[in-house]
Every structure is written in C-alpha cells, then in structure tokens.
C-alpha cells in the first residue's frame, strides 16, 4: 500500500494516530476547502499537531471523508464533510522525505 492509499485509509477510518504517523516530524497538512464553507482553513504543522487536531475533528464529527478515489501515487479525490458541509476535494502529496513520509500535503476543492 503506498502513502496516498494509507492516507485515504486512515482518513476513512478516522484513525488520527495512523494519519499522524504518515507524516514527517515537521510535516504539514494544509486544507483550503473549509474556506468555501465559511470555516477557517486547516493549517496543521507537525505530526503531533496532526494527531491532536484530527482527534478533535473525528471525535466531535466535525470532519470526515467519503467516496474516495485514488488518482495516482500522489493524488486522491473524495467528498470531504466539514461539519455537515460537503466539498468535492482533491488531496495532493506535494513532498515526501527520504523515508517516504509526508512533508507537505495539501487539500483543495476539485
């Protein structure tokens, strides 16, 4: 299973710990989609912050994904749900380190 598949799997399973482990120590996750829902964008810096941030989002049902589709080794699209507001989104793994861990991942409206 490659990194984009693991990313989708952890997001579908609401596995915040597994998600964080996909990232480099200083890895960042930037999600621009919430802006279109009148919510603040996600700019989460560091694997510990990714763990804590998504623990909060998943536990309180503020974020989830559905209908995922892997496009290639670095891209996947899905329907992202931000507190009930759905957005067709595309995730891009922009950079990875030598160990294959994500240094930067961005999500934008598709």
């Amino acid at each position: 299973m490659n990194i984009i598949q693991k990313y989708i799997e952890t997001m579908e399973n609401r596995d915040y710990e597994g998600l964080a482990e996909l990232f480099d120590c200083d890895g960042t996750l930037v999600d621009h989609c919430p802006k279109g829902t009148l919510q603040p964008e996600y700019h989460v810096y560091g694997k510990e912050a990714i763990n804590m941030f998504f623990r909060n989002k998943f536990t309180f049902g503020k974020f989830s994904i559905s209908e995922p589709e892997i496009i290639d080794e670095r891209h996947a699209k899905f329907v992202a749900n931000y507190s009930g507001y759905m957005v067709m989104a595309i995730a891009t793994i922009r950079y990875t380190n030598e160990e294959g861990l994500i240094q930067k991942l961005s999500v934008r409206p598709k």
Partner: protein
Amino acid sequence: MGTYAITGGSGGIGGQTVKLLKEAGHEVINIDLKGGDISANLASCEGRREAIEELHQRCPDGLDGLICNAGVSGAVSNLQLIVSLNYFGTIELAKGSFELLRKKKGCCVVTSSNTISQGAGRMDLVDLLNNSGNEQMILNLISKWDSTNLSVGNSIYVATKYALARWVRRISSSWAARGVRVNAVAPGNVQTPMTAALQGSARDALNALPIPARYGQEALMVPEEIAGAIVFLTSKYAAGINGNILFVDGGTDALLNSEKVY
C-alpha cells in the same frame, strides 16, 4: 502590599490564586458560597448586594484588584444557576466594586473559558446576556429548556463565558479611561474533582480537546497554571494590558483555531 478580592477562592483555580497572592504578601478577601471571608450566594441579587456592601465596609480605601472566578460548569442540572452565577454574579459584582477599584487604580480579572472559541455556545443567548441584561427575562426563557440534556447545559455554559469575554471587551475602554484595567483569562480543561471522575464518552470528549503542552499524557491543565496567569494580569507587569482575553490552555485554541490571530 495590596488588597484583593476574589470570588470562588475556596478551591481550584480560585484557591490557588489566593495562595499566590498571599505568598506575594497581599491581603485577600475571599467571597464564596461557603468557607469564604464573605459568605454570599452570588447567584442571587440579594447575595450580590450583600457581598458588595460588605466589601465596601471592609475596604473603605479601595481595592487593588477584583478577581471574578466563581462559576459552575454546564454539567449542573440547574440551568438558571449557570446564567445567574457565571454571568450576572460576575458582572454585577464587578460593577458594584468599580468605585473601590477606581480609588486605587486597580484592576479586574474575569474567568472565562477557552470553549468560547469552539463554536458550541448559543450565540442568541450571548446576545441576550450582553444586550438586554434582563436577568429575570433570560431565566424565564431558560426555564423552558431541557435541563436533562447535557449539551444544552454546555451550550449555556459556553454562552455565559462568551458573554463575559465580550463584556470585558466592551467595558474595558471606559474603565481604563477611569484608571481600572479589566481583562479575562480563558482556561482550558483543568483538573478538578469533576473532570477526574469523568468516564466513558465524557472522558473521550474531554481528551478530544487536546492540550498540546500535555501531548501524549492525557493530562489536563492544573489550577496553578491558570492562577499564575491571573496573578500576572493583576500585577504591575501587566500594566499595559487591558481588554484582553488571555487563553491559558496549553495551546488548545491555537491548535484548533490557528487561523484566528485576532
């Protein structure tokens, strides 16, 4: 050394604040339902009036600081108590003590909550609290709400804390112009007997408000940390701080709301 009054100073954050102030050599008057230097029920109009009168009798030369810390969580089944104590118990005591604070160019610190930034409060109630200020009318409205639903209690709790923060912002300019600074602290989840007893989904929800400074520990803030910030805001080192809501939550608000810088 100065003279300070505090509400809810018998334990928790208030108790630690009393301890720190006394260690610094200050005189501290604790106003609490039980066990205080002044015993008063700040959830009632009469209790507030009695507390204010006694404070004036005890401190004819004025106060260096008033710390409004008394409050209850959203878990209490008495929804009206949340409103009467948390909001009206705070602002009425602060307003009734203003002349004492003015005499010594003192300051006021109010305890809000970091939940105000998490979107769980009823903003219609916040507006009613800040804009109408009609306690009896608001209590009448709330009496019809479902007191058995924990999320209702929590939404009222957050609303009272949000309204307190907004009251601080609104009042701060005129008070400062007359020599009295007013600020608020917004604590994160703090160790209390109540939080220690939480189990199951309630515990899961608590842990899903992560405290970055406690990463990996499943631990909460401790009262001393909040008290330290309160004492700082009352000190000369905070002389330039007015109308601020100081989040003392180990970074929870920054984690969940990184894009809000103002």
